[in-house]
């Protein structure tokens, strides 16, 4: 497999300590604590509304916690001088100006952190978008947007990679490629933290799992432990049965394992 980064950096953890955030009366994240370690892929699981995206936004300093803190490599995100070199994130693949080219989208971000044009071309080649680098990002398919998002995350060759639903909209080849990339990045000693609702995909990609429900920690376990007695999907439903915000009726599979 090709090398994805230029140089290896110090290993960095993500530490979430007693993090809380409420929107009105709704506690999106409720006294949540966990640590994401380097050298492995950590999956972030939980039903819709469990607080996964809010937690990721707080780690990135986009959302201010009501209490507690989130540290990357021991420091708060807003204390990082050139954060793209430390943390590469993909939160929302659709967040591109529709009339700006993929190349200029990446270049504008790169320039804020002293990253050169060569690296922009490198990450475009890495995700297979070099041929469409000059096309407007608004015309991209969901899969191409995800690739652009992953290129954005890799710009600074970061020690920590954090991806929210990175395989949404990718074709089977793309899904396989992301899985290989994440495994490879973890193998290089990076910290890889990813959320996904695709249980089978998570089972194939992650080494460790953080499971949340209603903003609280439900599990912080090795994937082998979680799947010891069956599929990850079954174990997940058993764990989150009490914390689904929008329960549906007529789900025989779930009642069978509950």
């Amino acid at each position, binding site marked *: 497999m090709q090398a994805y980064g230029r140089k290896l950096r110090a290993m960095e953890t993500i530490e979430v300590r007693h993090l809380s955030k409420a929107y009105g009366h709704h506690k999106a994240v409720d006294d949540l604590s966990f640590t994401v370690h380097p050298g492995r892929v950590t999956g972030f699981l939980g039903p819709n509304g469990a607080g996964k995206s809010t937690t990721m936004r707080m780690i*990135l300093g986009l959302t*201010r916690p009501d209490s507690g803190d989130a540290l990357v490599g021991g420091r708060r995100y807003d204390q990082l001088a050139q954060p793209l070199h430390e943390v590469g994130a993909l939160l*929302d693949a659709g*967040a591109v100006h529709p009339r*700006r080219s993929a190349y*200029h*989208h990446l270049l504008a971000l790169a*320039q*804020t952190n002293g990253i050169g044009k060569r690296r922009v071309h490198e990450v475009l080649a890495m995700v297979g978008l070099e041929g469409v680098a000059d096309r407007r990002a608004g015309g991209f398919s969901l899969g191409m947007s995800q690739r652009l998002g992953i290129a954005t995350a890799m710009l600074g060759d970061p020690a920590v990679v954090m991806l929210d639903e990175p395989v949404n909209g990718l074709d089977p080849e793309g899904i396989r490629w992301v899985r290989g990339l994440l495994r490879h990045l973890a193998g290089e000693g990076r910290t890889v933290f990813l959320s996904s609702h695709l249980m089978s995909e998570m089972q194939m990609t992650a080494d460790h799992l953080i499971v949340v429900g209603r903003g609280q920690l439900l599990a912080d376990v090795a994937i082998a432990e979680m799947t010891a007695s069956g599929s990850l999907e079954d174990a997940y439903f058993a764990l989150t049965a009490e914390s689904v915000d929008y329960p549906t009726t007529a789900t025989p599979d779930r009642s069978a394992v509950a």
Partner: protein
Amino acid sequence: MSTLTSEWTKLRSLRSTTWFLGAAVAGMIGSGLIEAIAASAGEITPAEVDPFGGALAGLSFAEFVVGGFAVLAVTNEYASRTIRGSLTAVPKRWPVLAGKAVAVGGSVFTAALLLIFGSFLISRAVLDSHGMSLPAADGVPRAMAGAAVYLGFLALLGTGFAWLVRSTAGGLAALFGVLYGLPIVSLLLPHGMGAPILRFLPQQAGAALMQVGPSDLLAPWAGAAVLTGYAAVVLGLAAVVLRRRDA
């Protein structure tokens, strides 16, 4: 500095920047040459020629172009949700605001300066060739540079309001409300209370930069100081709000 480069990349990589610039060129040069064209057609008398040769005739048009350009430079980040990426790359946040202000304000000022002096020189040459000289007035170059400064100031104010309200419609309403609405409000105040205030409003402070000859306006330097004050307050407030608000 690095965020300035980045903001400049953002501006030049959008075709809308070209359209705004094109509109400004067409509007400023087009209206700036009206006196020259009228002179060529023999439709103007020397008494009707102004000291700028008409170079500032397109100013109100330019205000709208500049306002739209400046507000959109900020609000398109919210509309496209790229703001999160921008603030993730620069978590201190204020450098993004400063970089955008300098990139937008600087490009507006530079373009305005070139357009105003360009149409002035063309207009003067054409009028000369018809035997009409521009009426002499003090401080014509200062007034024309002042017009460019005023448009640059509008750009700064536009980005500031846009950061505060995060919507294109709201940003434009705030900017033009302050420019055109406040003078009307001040005139409605009883007992002429508004008259002293009027001179300190942004549009009149801008007019102070462009005055030639005696007027009720502030002195040009005082007008510049007032505009600087408005820009500093609005951008400072925007920086505080941007820092505190969840993105």
